[in-house]
């Protein structure tokens, strides 16, 4: 049979092949997104130059890019830990939201009335980090327990839990934690609880350090420690791992716990570093884009950092372009998701090679099937 795709005898698994596919996918996605600018009367080249110079060209812009990248890095690391251990958890929006709420609660001194408003600053930071982390860890942990104890589908449960978290925060900001005023939001958090800025003349904040430390820890965990190794083995083949004496359930629970906590820290960075108050709809889909970043980095904790900065930059440049020339920001979302879809489509090339009918000599597989018949 003559077909365009011909099965490879061995899948092309080299890092060159997967790297090549990623680069091709990026290029193609940018070309498609560029074409989408044309009906709006924009020159794709100048549009992209504008986009990147806005996101990376100035200290202020780059700082903004880093601000966007911080939650993406944290959620991507969370994705890596959880997915590599074999769960399909996608409830990062929920963990983010819960973490943001917990951090605001501590920053407001355990509202109402601010019970520990006198909390010294040196005690505030460890407490707020631990409380937010634990809140997210427990939130994700519930899903983990349901999966390992009752065999529920972790993908679906975590998806549903996102909504429960969103409604919980909606309730908090319109009820117990609400500030006096028309909008459903908390009062402005006290200045002392804001994450300090780290670069003069930009809005990049200390959350970057949190994100980088988490990245390093994840890298150490999965590359250097036996526990991380056991997590990965559990993810690759749970049956074999169990046979090898690994407590798969415990490893997966730990992964969900760590991941949930890190995603909650992303929420913390958003309220303490950017918004400085808790409000409804804070995440804006970052829980899903973070997963995309992790996928694009092929679940590699170090590659996540540049990838998140790229995606953060796209967001910053995209909104700048919309402000200035009316080009729709939605093109950025199209671009971001196309990259992943094209990589997935490109993976076909790892299993099949393209062959134009009537050219080239028959492949090994084809020759074998012909001798059989």
């Amino acid at each position, binding site marked *: 049979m003559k077909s365009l795709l011909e099965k490879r005898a061995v899948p092309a698994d080299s890092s060159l092949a997967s790297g090549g596919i990623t680069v091709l996918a990026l290029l193609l996605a940018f070309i498609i997104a560029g074409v*989408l600018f044309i*009906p*709006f009367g924009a020159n794709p080249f100048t549009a992209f130059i504008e986009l990147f110079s806005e996101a990376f060209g100035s200290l202020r812009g780059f700082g903004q890019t880093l601000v966007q990248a911080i939650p993406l890095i944290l959620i991507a690391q969370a994705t890596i830990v959880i997915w590599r251990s074999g769960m*399909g958890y*996608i409830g990062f929006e929920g963990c983010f939201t819960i973490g943001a709420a917990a951090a605001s609660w501590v920053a407001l001194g355990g509202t109402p009335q601010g019970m520990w408003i006198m909390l010294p600053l040196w005690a505030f930071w460890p407490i707020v980090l631990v409380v937010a982390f634990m809140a997210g860890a427990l939130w994700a942990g519930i899903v983990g327990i*349901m999966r390992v*104890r*009752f*065999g*529920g*589908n972790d*993908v*679906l*449960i975590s*998806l*549903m*839990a996102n*909504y*429960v978290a969103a*409604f*919980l925060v*909606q*309730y908090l900001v*319109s*009820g117990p934690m609400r500030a006096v005023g028309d909008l459903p939001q908390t009062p402005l958090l006290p200045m002392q609880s804001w994450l300090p800025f780290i670069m003069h003349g930009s809005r990049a904040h200390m959350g970057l350090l949190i994100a980088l430390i988490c990245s390093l820890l994840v890298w150490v965990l999965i590359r250097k420690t036996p526990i991380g190794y056991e997590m990965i083995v559990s993810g690759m083949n749970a049956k074999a791992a169990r046979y090898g004496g690994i407590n798969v359930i415990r490893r997966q629970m730990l992964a969900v716990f760590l991941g949930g906590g890190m995603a909650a820290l992303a929420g913390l960075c958003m309220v303490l570093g950017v918004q400085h108050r808790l409000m409804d709809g804070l995440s804006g*889909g970052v829980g*899903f*884009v973070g*997963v*995309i970043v992790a*996928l694009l980095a092929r679940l590699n904790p170090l590659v996540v950092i540049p990838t998140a900065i790229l995606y953060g930059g796209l967001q910053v440049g995209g909104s700048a372009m919309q402000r200035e020339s009316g080009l*729709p*920001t*939605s*093109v*950025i*979302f*199209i*671009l*971001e*998701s*196309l990259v*992943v*879809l094209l990589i*997935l*489509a490109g*993976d*076909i090339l790892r299993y099949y090679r393209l062959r134009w009918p009537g050219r080239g000599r028959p492949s090994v597989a084809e020759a074998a099937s012909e001798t059989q018949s």
Partner: protein
Amino acid sequence: MNLWSHLDAAFFITWLAAAVRLAGPVLLASLGEIYAERSGVLNIGLEGTLLMGALSSYLVSIYSGSAVLGFFAGGVGGLVVSLLLSFFYLRALASQVVVGMVFNILAGGLATYIYSLVIGDKMSPTVDMFNALPVPLLQKIPYIGPIFFNQPWPLYLTLGLVVLAQWVLFHTRFGLSLRAVGENPKAAHAAGLNVQRIRTYGVMLSCLGGGLAGGYLVTAQIGLFRDNIVSGQGFIALAIVIFGRWSPLKALFAAFIFGAADALQLSLQLFNNILPAQVLLALPYLLTILAMSGVIGKTVQPGALTQPYRKD
């Protein structure tokens, strides 16, 4: 207002009629999704499918001036989407979770892009909507009549499709194949079934249902298109599939319960917050989580759900 003095028959009829109204689109979407999930494909991209269906329905409605054409254009939009999704689910054999999730983001971007390309900053025109179409005789039944039989006709169509789906899934050869492929693709392949083809039908039906549900939203409920028109209803439909245990008739009840919680939240807002609205809004999701985790009876999902099938 005093709540208790208002709990009369009229309150219940208004409430439950609203419940049915809100249940309509999500039920339609979940019917389609049942086919996909029974064949082993979890189409998380349903949310995006609804959005694309709603967009195509809206555009066709305003340009043709016909709500009927608009409604079915939603289904066509869904089928176009299914070309893309089934390629990734079944040809590229990618993770269904990843594809669905990424597709939702893509659809969100595409819908806004296309909308601003076609409509731009103009005031967005409203579409002609379906009016309630009382069914002769049936609408006279006390209680049941005004609740179920004084609704726009897409609801009757959906109710008909529930019965059809129940029959197709459990009493036809196609339904048997679909379930076999979703339960154990290897065995189904050995028995001579074409797994990928049957799953393609599952995905197509899921997208058709999702697209029509989008059309339903535009032509029978909202009459406009907005970026957030779907706002999680695709995910509610996924929840309904679970809560309805992958069976169309049970999904009907599940959708009705979800709609009732939603409608109750709307009417309780009139009564000075006896209960925070968010409790009722979160209730369907909580129930679904409990249903999945086996607290409310055992839920058994199709055996091969989310597992891509690779021959050889």
